[in-house]
Structure formats: structure tokens, C-alpha cells
């Protein structure tokens, strides 16, 4: 469902009149009664300032971010304003929130730099800006606004497809379809910089190190990609030959569903080889079970693996939920002061996570924990 903006308003605190709507497009959309009801959430007390506030009243939803700029040059020592959107009360307005927040930030900057809002003349430019905003955001979901000679604002409505999962350092992002299909230039600089490193094998931390981009930025960029792209899988996966996987009931779909078959065989076939057979691939998946490491699988099924890339096999299986990974979770069962890192041994932190967080290698951790009588390893 498209998010339709019914009205955009600009509200201010006037030193003698109090809170009022200076501009709104379309005109007269917000009734006197509606404004009186909600004004205390539009021009707010200090505790609510600079926060995104959505208020629903009289069948309308108003989303705004009240701004307060303190300075003795302003009458009453502060400038208070709020640029907000009005939608129908039943609209899902999540996509509008980042835009409202961004706009409040932009206006604040413009005011601090050049007195854009406190100057009566330049303030008038707001009206055509608001008209353009309303039109463009409703029509295409994006808007580019030249403010003056040196400032332009770019806005885009992001329709969230699902709740974005939190991306961890040890997650491995992978493009489910060919990433060349995505035009590089449409992405921001950070995303462009990390794109070459997203190959389904490098985890976030590694991408950050190799692409020379700060870890948090990589995380945010990947999270952004997750929200925007249709096919994009992120899952915590550290491919190692010591990993253990097992099938899920969904593996049956490989037999039942022709389209998944096609997709699978196309994906897992080794480069330059003849297309793998369904029989081989299915056998390989079924060979995965608790207790069988990848190393074991490779030695048992070496014949089937002639035309199949085991890494891509696992990736596909994970993406389509045909298989799942079994992780080791250490649990501390006795009080022992000598053990290091007790806080991670609760049964909620996998080996992967511990390795990533502490920088110890998998083997080293394994050695430590297998020999510790106070630690029990849970596979789940």
C-alpha cells in the first residue's frame, strides 16, 4: 500500500500569538479544531523537542519533529518550529519517519548556517518547497529539492519489506541473484565501496577490513540493502570444513518444486562444469546430519562433489532453508575463577560469535573448551 501524504505543514511558535501553522499545502487542510487538539505535540515543551512524534487525532495522523534552536538573538531566546506530514489515520507511516527526521535536520542546519527560517524573506521559499515535496513524494516516492545555490536535499521513501534483522559482525551477506543486475551508481558511496567484497564468503568484519570501511558503516549499509532489495539474504555463516549442518523438512521441496530445482542446480554447479544432476545434489543434502562435518561429507561423497561446489551447495541450502547449521554453544556448569571469558559461556553465544568477538581462532577455542571440565558443549 502506498503511503499517501495528505498535507505538509510548517508550524512555528510566534512570540505573542503562540503556536500556529505558518504554511500548509494544500491550504486549510488542518482545521482549527484539529490543530488546537494536537498543538502541544507539534510545538512542544523542552522534554519532547527534537524527537520524532506521531499523533493521531480526528481520523488523521500527524508526523513531525519539533525543533528548538536556542540563541539570545531570537525573541524569547529560542526558535521553535516543526515541519510535518499529515496522513489518513490508517496509513502505515513508517516510511515517512526517516524523511521527517531528515527534513528537520536539514532545516536546522539551514537556519544555523544562514538564518533561513528566521529571515522572513527566505522563509517564504518554504511554501514552494513544501508543494514540490508533496507532489513528488506522492507521485514517485522520491524528491530532489534545490534549496539555494549551494544546497540540495535528496529524499526517498523507503518501503520496508520486513523488519530488518540486526546485522552482526559475523554475518555473511550474499546476493541471491547476480549482483551485476544492480546498478552501482544508484547506491551511496559506502555501499559502492563494499559491493565488490560481498561474495557470500566474506563476513561483515572481513569486508570492513578489506574494503577499508568502518565496521559500523558496513553494518548499516548491509542493513540498508536488506531493506531495499528483493532478493538478499544475510545469515550468520562462517563456512568452515568443521561446520555441521542438517536437513530441514523443506528439503523435500527440492524434489517437489521444479523451479527450486532449476535454481539450485544452476547455482551449485561448479564453474566450467556440466550441470550437476539432481540425484547427486539431493544425496549431498541428505548426507548432512548431526555429527557429520563438511570434511566428512567431502570425503564420503567425493564423487558427487565432482560437479558441485560444496560452498555454494551449503549457501543455497541455507538461503532456501533446506538445511540449517548446527552450532556449538558452550555452557559453563560450575563456578571456576580460572576460566576466562565466563560471560560468553551461557549457552546463548555460538563458537562463531565468540571467535569473532575475541579474535581467537576456532581451533584454539575448541581446544580450550573441549578440555575444560567445567564447560559443556551444546549442539543446536
Amino acid at each position: 500500500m502506498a503511503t499517501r501524504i495528505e498535507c505538509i505543514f510548517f508550524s512555528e511558535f510566534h512570540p505573542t500569538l503562540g503556536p500556529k501553522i505558518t504554511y500548509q499545502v494544500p491550504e486549510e487542510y488542518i482545521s482549527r479544531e484539529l490543530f488546537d487538539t494536537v498543538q502541544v505535540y507539534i510545538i512542544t515543551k523542552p522534554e519532547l523537542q527534537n524527537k520524532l512524534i506521531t499523533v493521531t487525532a480526528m481520523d488523521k495522523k500527524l508526523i513531525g519533529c519539533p525543533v528548538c534552536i536556542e540563541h539570545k538573538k531570537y525573541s524569547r531566546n529560542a526558535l521553535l518550529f516543526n515541519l510535518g506530514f499529515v496522513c489518513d489515520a490508517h496509513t502505515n507511516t513508517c516510511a515517512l519517519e526517516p524523511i521527517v527526521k531528515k527534513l528537520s535536520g536539514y532545516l536546522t542546519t539551514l537556519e544555523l548556517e544562514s538564518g533561513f527560517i528566521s529571515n522572513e524573506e527566505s522563509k517564504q521559499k518554504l511554501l514552494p518547497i513544501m508543494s514540490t515535496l508533496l507532489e513528488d513524494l506522492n507521485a514517485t516516492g522520491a524528491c530532489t529539492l534545490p534549496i539555494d545555490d549551494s544546497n540540495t536535499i535528496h529524499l526517498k521513501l523507503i518501503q520496508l519489506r520486513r523488519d530488518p534483522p540486526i546485522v552482526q559482525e559475523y554475518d555473511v551477506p550474499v546476493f541471491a541473484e547476480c549482483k551485476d543486475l544492480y546498478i552501482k551508481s544508484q547506491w551511496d558511496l559506502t555501499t559502492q565501496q563494499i559491493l565488490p567484497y560481498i561474495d557470500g564468503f566474506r563476513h561483515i568484519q572481513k569486508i570492513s577490513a578489506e574494503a577499508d570501511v568502518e565496521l559500523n558503516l558496513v553494518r548499516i549499509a548491509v542493513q540498508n540493502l536488506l531493506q531495499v532489495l528483493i532478493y538478499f539474504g544475510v545469515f550468520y555463516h562462517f563456512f568452515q570444513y568443521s561446520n555441521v549442518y542438517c536437513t530441514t523438512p523443506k528439503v523435500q521441496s527440492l524434489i517437489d518444486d521444479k523451479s527450486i530445482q532449476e535454481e539450485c542446480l544452476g547455482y551449485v554447479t561448479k564453474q566450467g562444469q556440466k550441470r550437476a544432476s539432481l540425484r547427486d545434489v539431493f544425496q549431498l543434502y541428505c548426507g548432512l546430519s548431526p555429527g557429520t562435518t563438511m570434511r566428512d561429507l567431502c570425503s564420503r561423497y567425493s564423487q558427487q562433489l565432482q560437479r558441485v561446489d560444496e560452498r555454494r551447495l551449503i549457501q543455497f541450502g541455507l538461503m532456501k532453508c533446506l538445511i540449517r547449521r548446527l552450532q556449538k554453544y558452550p555452557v559453563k556448569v560450575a563456578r571456576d575463577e580460572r576460566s576466562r571469558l565466563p560471560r560468553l559461556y551461557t549457552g546463548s553465544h555460538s563458537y562463531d560469535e565468540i571467535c569473532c568477538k575475541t579474535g581467537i581462532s576456532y581451533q584454539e577455542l575448541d581446544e580450550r573448551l573441549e578440555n575444560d571440565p567445567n564447560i559443556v558443549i551444546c549442539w543446536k
Partner: protein
Amino acid sequence: MSSTAMKKKVLLMGKSGSGKTSMRSIIFANYIARDTRRLGATIDVEHSHVRFLGNLVLNLWDCGGQDTFMENYFTSQRDNIFRNVEVLIYVFDVESRELEKDMHYYQSCLEAILQNSPDAKVFCLVHKMDLVQEDQRDLIFKEREEDLKRLSRPLACTCFRTSIWDETLYKAWSSIVYQLIPNVQQLETNLRNFAQIIEADEVLLFERATFLVISHYQCKEQRDAHRFEKISNIIKQFKLSCSKLAASFQSMEVRNSNFAAFIDVFTSNTYVMVIMSDPSIRKCPTEQKHIHTGRTALITTRLFVCFFLFQHLQQLSSTSVMLGNTLRSWSGWTAPSTACTCECASSLPPPPPPRIPPSANQSTARRRHVADSQLQ
């Protein structure tokens, strides 16, 4: 006395920018007049609970005066605002150019009060009087008072002229809180008894945090009828100056050949000032128990005045000069320079750098002039 606090609702209303929040910050929040310049506009109603004299709680409703808010108060918020009001304080900016509009809002308030809290006491403060020329002030105030009393009928209103730059602010607020203290008659009786026992010329009782005079005794008429609020103002300023330097004011003694004045902590919620015209009163290390009220009357004690460095002493001497002048007018004596007895203890942290005087605009300049003249 009941152990639970008694709450009294006080409405503070008036046009936008008339000075409501400034007044409240000075009286209850330890602002000095200059600090109020930094205050922003009050959005809708600001509630504050002020503890007064131990278990009296003043529930202050500082109502923003912009048109949008005022209109709301009389319509959608009417019951909420105007019910259970003990005191309505309405502030008028003496410089206002919209007298009719001001009166219109005032009358709307009175209407709402009459409907919802008909027993409420009404006070009108004609504020920012420092902006009026000195020789005009009485006249202008008299005019306003007449108008307001007439307009307020059938309700009675008490009018004061006020300014944050002099003692008139303290006079008005003293009178207002006096109306709110439930056992104030008894307080006055006890104070009289106490004063007579110790044969004091005058005794003042101050609320401890605000230094508002809540009761006084005098055995005869004195020349300066405004001395009480002047003392409030002076001591409060001094107390604030001390606390800005991490010192805490406890007591003060001022004497010359004709009188001695003592200011000290009286009870946990009050200060007392005792004026004795018998100069032979000397320091007495003992305490005397007051028979009737059981309160401890401290005639004098060892003085423990906590201001130490030269700047402090300077301030003290100017304070004592102020006090001396005020007290002199009390007795009509022309005494020689007031000697100031104080004990100095060891050093304090170094004083902060002197404050840069703010840039003056016209009205500020006038106000500053008034404030400085007080220090002569």
C-alpha cells in the same frame, strides 16, 4: 500539625512576556534578576511544586500567555485550570500597548474564577515598574489600581507594583504567601510574645529558602515602611552570592553605637532577624529556650559567617552598608559608619572570574541604573 503536606494551587497568569516566569525563578528558584534574561517562553502550563515552611506545598501553575494558550485556557482547559484555585496572580506589563486586550483577558480569567473557585484570592501585579520614570510611578500605579479594582467587582483584588530589580517584588510575594499560610495569626502572636520577652525593637520572620517575610513585630512606627522587603532582597542576594562561591550563609550581625541587628537560623524552615536598640547587648554563648512555643531563641551566638576572601569582605561591607542604611532609617539616628563585626575563617576556593557585563539596550540600561542606585 498534620504530617501530610497541605497543597495550595496558585495560578500565575498574564500576557506573554509580562514577567511571570522571571518572577517565579527569582522567588523560588534562586535566580538573580540578571539570570532571567536567559529564560525562554513558557509552553502551555509549567507546573512546579514548592515546599514552603515544611509541610505547605505551593502548587504553582505558570501559564504561558500567548494568545493560542490563553484561548485554550478559557475553553477546552477551563475546568482543569480554574478549579480548586487558592490564589490567582495576574501580571500586567506596565509598558503594554494593548491595554484593552490585557483587560479583556483579565476579565475572562475572573469570570472563570468566579465560576470555578469563587473563594480564590486575587492579586494583580503591575510589573516592570522600573521602566517607568521614578516620579511617575506612584501616579501610574494608582491609576491602574483604581481601574483594576473597579473591573474586578464583585471580586476583590489586591494590587502591587513590582519590578524584578528592586524590593517591590518581595513585598508583593510576601503578601501573597502570607495569605496562604494557614496558622499565620498564631505565628504572629508567638512572634510578639517572643519579641516582648527579649525586649527587641523589631523582629522579622523569614521563610528560609525564599527569604520572604512571613511575619513581623514592631514596637513602634518607623520611617521606612519598605524596610522589610528591602531586607529580604538584600539578604537573598547576599545568600545567593555566597552559594555561588560554595559558601553557605548562616548568620550575620550588624551593629553600631545605637543598635544591634542579628540574623540567624530560627527553625528548620525559618530565619529570624532581631533588632535591639539597647547597644549594651553583648554576645552571649548560651541559648535561651522560649517558654511558650518551645522554640529555641538564639539571642546571639558565636558568629559563623562564611565569607572569607577580600571580594567577599567587600561584598559584605557593601551589604552591611546597605543594611546599615536601612536600619538607620529604622531609628532615625544618624550614626557614624557602621562597623561590621564578623569572624573570618580559613580560605575558600578562589573566586570565579568577574562576569562580563551584558551589552546594554535601553531598557536594560535603565534597569541597571535603578539596581546600582540601591547600592549607594
